[in-house]
């Protein structure tokens, strides 16, 4: 089953999973957009500009980080290689563009983030599946019975852990009663996703360690978790005072 899945979506076809996740996520987000005071058109527009900025921003960020190389081979800037891409730069540019679009259209940040939460949530499921297909984000070696044979060893199926955690988070948020406080849905998603990564990262076999021994991704997840808690509390306080 796993082999069949990995053969079917082996790189570069694993990108199909991300595109499918984005499409399903957007469809689900559209269904609930009006509950959050955002029209379907506004949601589609902000996602369109965000995704466009993601693609262009990822390329620009990679080029800027390797500027000396692109000065020697400038035609590479517009080449079709999907590997000329920096995902962190892409996410930052997409966020900035979406923020600017939202401000120009007078969209409330928290209402918009709540409306986009199903999109983000399904996207994290797609990321887990694409990791599984590509064999990236792999686990440490294990003798546990559910270990999967990957890269010449039995390993923790961290990609499956990641996908199941994302599915669980999506289920919890999709079926929970709607909070009257804007921002709570998105911040709950953000806190739960950070917590799940903080836990699962311990089983990853490709972690990067900083300060000699601390797992970099766990520290990032902990900071996001703490920020989400702080923002949640501020949202509770603000909506209590105003409402």
């Amino acid at each position, binding site marked *: 089953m796993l082999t069949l899945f990995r*053969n079917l979506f082996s790189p*570069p076809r694993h990108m199909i999973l991300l595109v499918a996740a984005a499409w399903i996520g957007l469809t689900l987000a559209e269904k609930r957009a009006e509950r959050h005071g955002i029209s379907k058109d506004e949601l589609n527009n902000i996602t369109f500009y965000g995704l466009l900025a993601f693609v262009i921003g990822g390329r620009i960020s990679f080029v800027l980080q390797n500027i000396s190389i692109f000065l*020697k*081979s400038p035609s590479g800037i517009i*080449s079709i290689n999907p590997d*000329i891409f920096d995902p962190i730069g892409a996410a930052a540019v997409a966020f900035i563009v979406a923020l600017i679009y939202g401000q120009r259209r007078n969209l409330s940040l928290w209402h918009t983030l709540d409306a986009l939460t199903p999109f983000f949530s399904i996207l994290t499921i797609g990321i887990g599946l694409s990791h599984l297909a590509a064999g990236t984000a792999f686990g440490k070696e294990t003798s546990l019975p559910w270990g999967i044979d990957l890269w010449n060893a039995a390993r923790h199926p961290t990609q499956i852990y990641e996908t199941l955690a994302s599915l669980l988070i999506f289920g919890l948020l999709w079926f929970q009663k709607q909070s009257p406080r804007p921002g709570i849905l998105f911040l709950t998603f953000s806190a739960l996703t950070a*917590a799940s990564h903080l836990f699962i990262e311990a089983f990853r076999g490709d*972690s990067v360690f900083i300060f000699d021994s601390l797992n970099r991704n766990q520290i990032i997840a*902990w900071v996001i978790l703490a920020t989400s808690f702080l923002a949640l*509390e501020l949202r509770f306080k603000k909506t209590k005072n105003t409402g």
Partner: protein
Amino acid sequence: MTQSQRITLYILVLIAGAAWIFLNAAPTDTPTVNTAAPQAGFTAPDFSLKTPQGETYTLSELKGNAVLVNLWATWCPPCRAEMPAIQKMYNEYKDQGFVVLAVNSTIQDSALEIPIFTSEYSLTFPILLDEVGEVSRMYQVRSLPSSYFINRLGIITEVVIGGPMSEALLRARIEEALK
């Protein structure tokens, strides 16, 4: 849930998270560099193959150089399209210790086509014949071309599946492998 209950919960979760980070501190498990696998971060699986002229190349003997293992076939359009860029980069970086091993997937190609192909593209780097598909199996190749950039220590730094690779991408990956 009251505000004080929520804050207590946040603090407990953050303390548990910090404890989990410290509990998992220090990479105690066997590092991936001790395992051979066709994935970034692992040691490149070793192989020995012959050129059409009968010369043998062994990957592990090239330690100390940055190596590009490129799996290709004459009938594969993106493989053909990226060859001029690979040749150009080979000319530019070979003096810094960059080696190209162009492994022809001979099991699914015609060995007779190879000399025509190499002269058509004026290729000067070694072309190796994977006649029984050993390297394709070892590197779990599912698409052609597949390229593996290996650093001076014999560790895979990047894998590029599909093509054609542009000069800029090749340059970025080679410079990283040469570090």
